[in-house]
């Protein structure tokens, strides 16, 4: 039998080196890189690297996929075109070169976007990287030596602002975290969690060891993807894309965001009112039907029960609409201000009282929650509702020294109103309606009784906790409590920072208050019992079982006249014994090796627990 040669069959043939691929596609390496990025093809790591361990491999099928890409021809055409220009220049024929260069072959990436993301949800799932990249390039300098064209940067800036406007209008921001690198945000759109990062406001350095050609290729694809995504999202809102906002993109991004989001919201509220009118008319027709059927009460009773829940919700909606939503169409700011003025003036007083109370009965069962704690989200219990109304009725003013765009994004998407120091602000610094003045300097320059001065961190912390946290801890000039990451879910035995516990308490209190306000107190009590450990649940289950058994026995006794002993008492005691037995059996059955490993694991766990306990003790001692 002929011996098979190495590298001629099986896994080895499935992969080709980069050079082989380039030869097959007849491209330059830079063109190949470009095509791969646009098409979404990346190098692979084969199990056996037959051609050498130091080489980059691609799958054969990936290369075949590239071979049939229409863009491939376009890339070749562009190369030929460039060659022509070069030749003309070499012959010192400048007019000809100019003429040729005006005829550069154009290409589009639409089909690649469609190919890689067949539906909007697919695109949303992969939006993290595009957003991070676009936000980064929006602040980069357009550098000729690195080949960063100014129009790409401008487009990046526009897209970043459009995205922020959408987030503000849809109130879909969920988490935010300020780290040394920048601002991390997470939004939820169509059930997809989208995370992105926005750099701080400092001039970014362009390092030498980053290949900007590669980055710009990524940016190119990401920008066209984002444009399509944005088109669909804006379209769903009922707004033309790109939005017709006349303000210059560069000078006042915040203004752009504000105007765009306002436009979106206006359209939305129009739609809402239409929907409400429709709902009302439906309701009226239903009521008429009810009146007609009053002759036959037995049938109606059942129906009414079903409808009650719906109607309650609808009532709420209608009331809300009367208060806020109808008025803004006439004049947004004034109506809001009038409505919220008396409340707002009260807030600081309320706050002080509530803080004292909280400090007094910290260990008490229920710290009395307040309107000041829950913010604008008073009678809503669901996440979406809270996120869109937390800062409702509050008017913020951003000082000159705070990151304006970032803060306005968070505040507006959580339902607040923002004014700033500069052009286009809806109100100026001395406005009496301002409730919160955000500054990042040791002392406020002006004095005002009706407003609270806070540091910017307060906005992020409040938004993350979904409550208005204690403002006295964030007053200017003092070190605020630690800014904790909302992205980290602490495990059972992990060290939980003191402030996180405090916030959790506030959160619980607020949630209880909201539920009560929403008229779901009964539901909340039920949840309160259901939440604790599975043990209590088991116990209740066992109780129920026993009760049932007793009832059964009673029935049997009644039926037969005999006394049947219930077995449940014994049964209930059994589990404890069983548990002991199990542990003993485990001890016996384990081999020495396994037993040692088990013991080690248990020891580690105990050590971790001890550590957290120690830390807690230390913290308590410091306090």
């Amino acid at each position, binding site marked *: 039998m002929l011996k098979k040669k190495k590298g001629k069959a099986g896994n080895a043939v499935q992969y080709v080196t980069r050079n082989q691929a380039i030869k097959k596609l007849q491209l330059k390496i830079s063109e190949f890189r470009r095509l791969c990025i646009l098409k979404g093809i990346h190098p692979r790591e084969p199990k056996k690297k037959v051609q050498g361990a130091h080489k980059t491999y691609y799958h054969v099928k990936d290369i075949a996929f590239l071979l049939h890409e229409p863009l491939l021809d376009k890339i070749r055409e562009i190369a030929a075109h460039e060659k022509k220009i070069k030749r003309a220049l070499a012959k010192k024929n400048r007019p000809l070169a100019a003429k040729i260069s005006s005829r550069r072959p154009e290409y589009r990436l639409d089909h690649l976007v469609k190919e890689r993301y*067949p539906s909007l949800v697919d695109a949303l799932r992969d939006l993290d990287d595009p957003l*991070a990249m676009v936000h980064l390039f929006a602040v980069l300098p357009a550098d000729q030596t690195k080949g960063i064209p100014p129009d790409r940067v401008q487009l990046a800036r526009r897209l970043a602002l459009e995205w922020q406007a959408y987030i503000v209008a849809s109130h879909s921001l969920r988490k935010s975290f300020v780290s*040394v*690198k920048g601002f991390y945000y997470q939004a939820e759109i169509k059930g997809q969690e989208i995370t992105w990062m926005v750099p701080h406001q400092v001039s970014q350095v362009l390092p030498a060891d980053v290949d900007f050609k590669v980055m710009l290729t990524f940016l190119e694809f990401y920008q066209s993807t984002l444009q*399509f995504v944005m088109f669909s999202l804006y379209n769903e809102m009922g707004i033309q894309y790109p939005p017709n906002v006349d303000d210059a993109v560069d000078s006042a991004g915040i203004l752009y965001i504000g105007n765009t989001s306002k436009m979106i919201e206006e359209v939305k509220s129009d739609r809402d009112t239409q929907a409400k009118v429709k709902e009302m008319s439906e309701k009226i027709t239903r009521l008429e039907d009810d009146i007609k059927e009053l002759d036959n009460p037995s049938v109606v009773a059942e129906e009414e029960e079903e409808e009650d829940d719906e109607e309650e919700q609808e009532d709420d909606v209608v009331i809300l609409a009367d208060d806020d939503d109808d008025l803004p169409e006439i004049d947004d700011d004034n109506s809001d201000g009038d409505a919220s003025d008396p409340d707002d003036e009260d807030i600081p007083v309320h706050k002080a009282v509530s803080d004292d109370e909280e400090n007094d009965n910290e260990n008490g069962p229920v710290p009395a929650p307040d309107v000041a704690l829950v913010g604008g989200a008073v009678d809503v219990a669901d996440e979406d509702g809270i996120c869109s109304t937390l800062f409702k009725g509050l008017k913020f003013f951003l000082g000159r020294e705070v990151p304006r765009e970032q803060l306005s994004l968070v505040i507006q998407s959580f339902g607040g109103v923002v004014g700033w120091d500069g052009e286009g602000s809806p109100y100026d610094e001395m406005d009496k309606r301002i409730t919160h003045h955000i500054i*990042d300097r040791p002392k406020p320059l002006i004095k005002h009784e009706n407003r609270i001065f806070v540091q910017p961190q307060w906005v992020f912390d409040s938004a993350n906790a979904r409550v208005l946290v204690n403002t006295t801890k964030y007053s200017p000039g003092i070190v605020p409590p*630690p800014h904790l990451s909302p992205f980290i879910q602490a495990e059972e035995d992990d060290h939980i920072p003191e402030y996180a516990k405090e916030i959790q308490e506030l959160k619980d209190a607020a949630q209880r208050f909201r539920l009560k306000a929403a008229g779901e107190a009964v539901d909340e009590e039920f949840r309160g019992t259901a939440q604790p450990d599975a043990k209590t649940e088991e116990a209740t289950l066992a109780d129920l079982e026993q009760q049932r058994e007793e009832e059964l026995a009673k029935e049997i006794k009644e039926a037969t006249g005999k006394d049947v002993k219930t077995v449940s008492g014994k049964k209930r005691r059994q589990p404890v014994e069983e548990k002991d037995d199990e542990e003993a059996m485990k001890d016996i059955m384990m081999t020495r090796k396994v037993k040692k490993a088990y013991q080690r694991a248990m020891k580690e766990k105990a050590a971790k627990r001890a550590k957290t306990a120690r830390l807690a003790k230390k913290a308590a001692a410091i306090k």
Partner: protein
Amino acid sequence: MGRAKRQRKEWRAIDGQEVEEFLEQKTREERLGPSLDSVPDDDLFFVDTKPDDVSKKPVRMSKKEKFRNKLTRAQAIIQGAHVAEPVIPQTFAKKAKNHDLAKRLKKQKQKKKGDTGELVVREDTGKEIIVPPKEGRYDIFSKDTEEFRLRNKAIKAVKEWKKSLRDAPAVEIDASGCSVNPDYESHQEAVGQAVAAEMKKQYDAELLPVAPPKVVEWEDYEHKDELERLLVESDGEEEEEDSPSSSEDDQVVKRSSVTKRKKTIQDRNREMRNKLMQKEIELRKKEKKQRRELERLGELLKNVESLTKEQEEKLRRRHADLQELIDSAPPRLGKHKFNPFPIQVLTTDEIKESGGSLRKIKPTPVLIKERYKSLQRRGIIEPRVRVNKSGKKRKTVIHGKRADNAEERQQEIHKLRARNKKLKSKTS
């Protein structure tokens, strides 16, 4: 498999030419103005049916003049050229008749719309194509807009990547300790990680072997300790040692050749017999073993079971280890190893300085590098190291060095002269 093949064929069948050609033609038209072929002849020319000049009365001409004014055959042909019908290829002429091209071209002009895509009729083939509007100006994801496509066939979605466990998130979120105003404990943790990474770099650098110097100055050599001196000397000595050893080897070879005796036929036969015997003995041993094993088959089966279990366990553990390795680093995609972006954490001093203020912190200024590294971490691009172009090396010219040297020498001469003068004055 069959399905895959068909798909590949479908790729081949994709024909994007039509659209591309159209676009090309369009750009050409924009540049050069509308092509004369596309404009109907009626727009370009008209048939002059009016009499040349009615007011003029017929002039009487002499016979000579009449003859002069008479058209020659050649002239008649040339003058009548514009009346002739344009020559159109047969196939195109048929189509044009069927579809009434001119009408549709007119319709096309009316139907042009910016945002909803253009319905365009190709002039050469007479087919209708829809050219998609500008990028990002139409809903690519909805099914109604399937018509806006660059190719004649619908674009097929690629299969979703098999998401392996290797996949790192696109935007990795910093630890809680990297916050601008971190909690003490989590900050300590983050700092610990950063310090550990830095120390590892340092240790790795220390552990790298150091190449011995190529040239050593004599004075340095004298001051060196013995070990280092040996290191320097070793190169030269090796060559000297080589020559005597090689001569010894030769002798050994000679001796061995002397002792070697030629095999006789007897020897060969004996060897053959021994070989066969050995084979038979082995066979017998094997059979004996087999018989014994057959007797205790039950026990063996049990053994096999435990063995397979053990192997499975081993395999599982190996997989787990591999997974751990994979999670810790991206796949090895090229020559260079992946180097993660260092943890960005404020130092304790910086935290004290800033006092939790956003305004005072020093943020990371090279975020583009972080993005670049993230792409490498996810295995989308291979890690690369920047190559410094080693083409022309610049000569470093120190200006005025020569002059400085001359100056120095001059100073020396001055000194000597001064000394000589002193000596002279003393002696005198």
